[in-house]
């Protein structure tokens, strides 16, 4: 084994490189006590963060789970409801429809967004003049407030006064009623969302691409591989960890879409774009049925969890975190 290979091997197996390094203040013989002391030192530093995590994450989640088994309209005391809410959300609140619509949105949104982000990252991964400017321009939509952008897009897609139909009219096409059309409303919403987040995802892919050592590409070129083979055989596999991150966060974000939809369609026309998050908001704050809204939130959580676990399992044996050069 060469020294390089042994280093790579050591890194992959997670062992420290140098034996006999200082393991802590107390030295090797008092490892247990010094570990506990180290923990004690850490506790006061961690308390503020823990306080925040517990108060603003753990407690609300626990309350939500409990609430899903109760009836509450905010103003009267809560009463026990057992599993009724979980039945009612499918019987009265059309949760299955909302779930289907949400899945449709995720399917429209994620693949296209990921492919576009990757393509843009590949295109920007070179030394061209003003590359920094391009990167800023592509990320700019992500920096803008989703609600403000959605308001503008609403008017851009307005059938009579909007820019899209005006441009189409110049070419002689009578534009459809975008956000009022059953077939087109959801694709338009997905498009707006893709526009907003593709730059952000592109940054991750760009970082991932730039971490790939150039020697690999050079070696491949020597072996006669063209740019496409280089991309599919080198770039893509080595981007798996980035891809996992982008897909997991993207899918979670897509399932939770709310503000764009609230501004653009409010779930309309009819209920064709009524995603689960929007329905939860409506059931909670227009209908004041908080128990049912909590049950729907738990449903959404379960679905997102299932998808995330699935993604992790898929990528588990395909991800390389370190590689020797």
């Amino acid at each position, binding site marked *: 084994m060469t020294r390089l290979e042994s280093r790579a091997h050591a890194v992959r197996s997670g062992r420290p490189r140098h034996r006999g390094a*200082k393991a802590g*203040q107390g030295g090797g013989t008092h490892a247990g006590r010094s570990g506990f002391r180290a923990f*004690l*030192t850490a506790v*006061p*530093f961690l*308390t*503020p963060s823990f*306080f*925040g995590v517990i*108060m603003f994450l753990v407690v609300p989640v626990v309350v939500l789970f409990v609430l899903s088994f109760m*009836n*509450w*309209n*905010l*103003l*009267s005391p809560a009463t026990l*409801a057992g599993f009724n809410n979980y039945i009612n959300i499918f019987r*009265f609140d059309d949760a299955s429809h909302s779930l289907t619509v949400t899945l449709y949105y995720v399917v429209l949104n994620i693949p296209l967004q990921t492919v576009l982000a990757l393509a843009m990252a590949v295109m920007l991964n070179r030394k061209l003049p003003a590359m920094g400017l391009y990167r800023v321009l592509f990320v700019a939509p992500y920096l803008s407030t989703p609600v403000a952008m959605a308001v503008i897009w609403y008017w851009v897609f*307005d*059938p*009579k006064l909007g820019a899209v139909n005006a441009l189409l009219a110049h070419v002689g096409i*009578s534009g459809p*009623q975008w*956000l*009022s*059309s*059953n077939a087109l*409303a959801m694709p338009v919403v997905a498009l707006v969302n893709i526009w907003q987040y593709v730059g952000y995802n592109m940054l991750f892919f760009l970082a991932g691409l730039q971490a790939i050592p150039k020697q690999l590409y050079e070696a491949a070129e020597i072996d006669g591989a063209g740019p496409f083979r280089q991309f599919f055989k080198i770039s893509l596999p080595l981007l798996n960890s980035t891809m996992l991150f982008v897909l997991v966060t993207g899918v979670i974000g897509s399932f939770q879409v709310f503000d764009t939809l609230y501004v*653009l*369609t*409010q*779930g*309309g*026309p*009819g*209920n064709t*774009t009524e995603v689960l998050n929007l329905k939860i908001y*409506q059931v909670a*704050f*227009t*209908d*004041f*049925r*908080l*128990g*049912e809204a909590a049950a729907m939130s738990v449903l959404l959580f379960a679905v997102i969890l299932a998808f995330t676990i699935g993604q992790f399992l898929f990528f588990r044996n395909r991800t390389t975190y370190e590689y020797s050069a």
Partner: protein
Amino acid sequence: MGACSGSNKNERRRLRLFLAGGIAAALVLTAGCSSSGGGSSNGSSHEVHLTYALWDPVQEVGYKQSIALFEKSHPGISVTVEQIPYQNYEAKLTSEFVSGSGPDVFWVNTPFLAQFEQASVMLNLAPLIKKYNVDMSIYRPALVALHSHDGAIYGLPKDWDTEGIFYDKAYFAAHHIQVPASLTWNPVNGGSFLTLAKEATIDKNGNNALSPKFNPNAIATYGVSIVNQPDIGYGPFLASDGVPVFQQASLAAGVKCSCYPDSVTFDNPAGIASLQFLMNLSLKYHVAPPASEYGSNAAASTNQDVTLFSAGKVAMDVEGDWFTDTIASSAKFPFGILPIPTGPDGRWSFTNGLIDAINAHTPNQAAAWELEQWLGSATSESLMGSGGYVWPGIASADSTFLNYWKAKGVDVSPFLDEAQNSANVETLPVAPEAGQVITSLSQDLGPAWLGQEPAAAAVATAAKDADAELQHPSQ
């Protein structure tokens, strides 16, 4: 790294621990202390502080003037006005009540009147009215009856409102369209209402919709705007065809209201025919803009109809009178008001009114009652009327609103004329599920407005869902 002396390191570590612990404790304590909610009285000083919640930013201007006068005559009380946009108003107020920090006095609209009553967040003013001998006869009886239930009364009526048809005077004059004194309509041929709308719809070649050369694909200006809403849209028309939207109940003073309905009552052939006619204004007759202009369910949730009218894209707008001020400031043309057309069943209108309610758990009940009395007084209501903001809830003060707009060249008497026909009035629903029902109606009728399905199918779905909401016990 050189050798470090153990005790030095220990001392430094202890110091670090102490500092970290101190910072952590300080952060936890300050994070735990939140500022107390509004509306709490300051026990030590003489001054009482009240919060007054409302949603209309236009009326807010008038109310701030009224409250300035109130504070002058009541030196120990100061009032903060909290303006919350209508879309969030009910939810925000509800969460404020839950956390115990709700406003002391607040506006209540009919759709959430029953919910607030059920939750006991409004103070029953009947004992106070009796104790202070408040003269309730000055208010419109219909408004008092609407806000009373089982002997309790929840507020002094502060205003009333109804609908009319705003029209572009300059446009009518420019195209030599005669402005009628009144209109008729019926679901079969549309009556003089449809004729006027056709006259006012003009295509890019200058032909109106009555002309055989009319090109519906190149319309320059539409004749009339109508939206998927029960009060400022289809409700008045359906009612005048003998089809109230909600089941009607009889109140005291011979007034009917949509109080605690069990069902909607427009799912019958007459209702379907009327709705289809209104939808056909856009779909068939091309006198109204495509329904998609008003948002995804044609419900104009951001008042797109007002925007289109003010921009001169539509010649007439079926609208609520509380938009008079908004239209006056955004439209660059003189406008007038036409009454809602008389239907086969006579003249009906959707009329509503708001009250100022007192928070049942306010710590400043005496001061809040003072504010309530002031806001319901002739002085305050006349001030609001003479600023052109709303029709006052006091019947005799109507002339203030009338005269303000007359001076501006707008004759608002058609609104008043409709209110005088108090026997033919439908109200917004009073029910704990009122908000949900209105939302579900808009969602279910939306596709028909957009022309995606016939009115009959949409009405069937809407009635089924609305009835289920009205009969499904709220949590």
